[in-house]
């Protein structure tokens, strides 16, 4: 699904990522973990086209997507969420998800202004499907609420519903459990599994070890911009280098 080949990212004199390579396999949940400053967010921003890497290549379904704008990535089936939740605060919950269907609808400026029959039909389809995604994440009762007034946990769910409305094949979640309480985190784990069942490959950056160990098929550990380890949750838990990086080395 996603292949990173020799990614290096320099910020001035600082090496944020150094010669990083790994592969995200289709239909798996891949977790990226690492201590603060390991380069997780930088990696995310490179994959989603917000930064352009200094060197190396990012292949999505075999094609180089380096430097491709975010909206183009979305139409190719790659969508992300944000650590700090980016919602359209002045719009209702339902409208937020309807925006997610934008790239999958096509009525133009004039068809919309003149209310052409096909644009009315399309609008109805957008509304119905958006409701289905709200149902999918379990916040359908909040459809008429202004998104800006949602509590954080619900906002997270809305952001995921909006991302899913794009029908991505590859979904990137940037610290989805950040700011959630333990009950909400459990719900999130179950939701991410259901997303995978929809045939969506998931990659997440996360600090919550319990969540990562629980849901991920594969884990990539970063430390100081380099790949420290890669493997199944069990392999990672037993890896002495990972333990050293997280808990500190005795030397």
């Amino acid at each position, binding site marked *: 699904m996603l292949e990173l080949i020799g990614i290096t990212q320099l910020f001035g004199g600082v090496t944020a990522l150094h010669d990083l390579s790994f592969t995200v396999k289709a239909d798996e949940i891949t977790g990226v973990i690492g201590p603060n400053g390991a380069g997780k967010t930088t990696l995310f921003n490179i994959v989603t086209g917000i930064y352009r890497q200094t060197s190396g290549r990012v292949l999505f379904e075999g094609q180089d997507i380096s430097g491709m704008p975010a909206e183009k990535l*979305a139409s190719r089936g790659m969508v992300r969420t*944000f650590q700090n939740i980016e*919602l359209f605060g002045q719009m209702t919950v339902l*409208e937020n998800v309807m925006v997610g269907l934008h790239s999958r609808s096509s009525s133009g*400026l004039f068809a919309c*202004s003149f*209310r052409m029959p096909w644009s009315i039909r399309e609008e109805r389809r957008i509304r119905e499907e958006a409701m289905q995604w709200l149902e999918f994440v379990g916040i359908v009762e909040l459809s008429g609420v202004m998104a800006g007034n949602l509590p954080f946990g619900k906002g997270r769910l809305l952001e995921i519903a909006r991302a899913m409305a794009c029908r991505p094949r590859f979904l990137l979640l940037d610290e989805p459990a950040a700011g959630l309480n333990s009950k909400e985190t459990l719900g999130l784990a179950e939701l991410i599994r259901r997303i995978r069942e929809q045939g969506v490959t998931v990659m997440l950056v996360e600090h919550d070890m319990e969540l990562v160990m629980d849901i991920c098929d594969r884990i990539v550990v970063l430390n100081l911009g380099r790949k420290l380890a890669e493997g199944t949750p069990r392999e990672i838990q037993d890896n002495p280098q990972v333990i050293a990086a997280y808990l500190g080395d005795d030397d």
Partner: protein
Amino acid sequence: MGGAKELLKYGLFAATILLAPYLFSGSYLLNVLVFAGINTLLAVALNLLLGYAGQISLGHAAFFGLGAYASAILTTTYDWNPWTAMAVAALTVGALAFAIGFPVLKLKGHYLAMATLGLGIIIQIVFNEWVDMTDGPSGFSGIPNLTLGPLTFDSDRMNYYLVWIFVLGCVFFSLNLANSRIGRACRAIHDAEVAARVVGVNARLLKVQIFALSAMICALAGSLYAHVMTFIAPSSFGFTVSVELLTMVVIGGLGSIYGSFLGALLLTLLPEFLSVMHDYEIVFYGGLLMVMTIFMPDGLVRVMPALCRRLPSLRRAKEDADA
């Protein structure tokens, strides 16, 4: 625009507009209302850009001017059919705005304000200096009135209907657009551009499209203005006019089409009633803008329902106090 409530609202609005001339006998007020109509077109156009897509323009009077001069020159100097000239003017100005929009709308916030301000100033200089075409600062006269079959739009009443039928069309069109996927995407860009792009909204293209559409409506308003006035001068399309438009949109309510109508109506009628402060008009507009943004940042259209709800309770409070 969908739903019975929306249609009813629009129906009431349209009926009020069409019946208004029978309520006032004075031709003078009718004349002022013709300009209120032109200002409504301009304010709705700017609101699509500013209130929905969240992109500022301090040069919108220039598009108004381009429409006016294009119609004036094509019909007077080159003897074109006025309706053809109007369509050609609107499409050309739209295309021009589309081309300018790509580099200009890359800018954000203050920089966008400065760039559109510059654009407005440049175009006004052209109106002033290209004397062979525009007759320069003294103005362009002898523009014919519009005709349609046996009708000639030369009286206040005729012009009122001419302009306001365009306004009704434009309002209908804008309400539909605002409630469509395009309007939603615009508001999404306004709220969180990065998030909108991430879910597949081509923010850059959409902003340019709305800019072009907005410019087209302004050009149309310009053509109407030229034919109604039969005389135009560069001073009608300067920076102060752009600021007035901005004031109308903000006072009426950002992101509300009916709000723009209220704002345009208010700011067209007020100076007529407050003619004593004519020399201080711009000071007055500035002051009004400040007071309104401080005390009612959501605009007239959102304050009025709240006021109406509060009125009964206020009256009750007064009655209680009296008793």
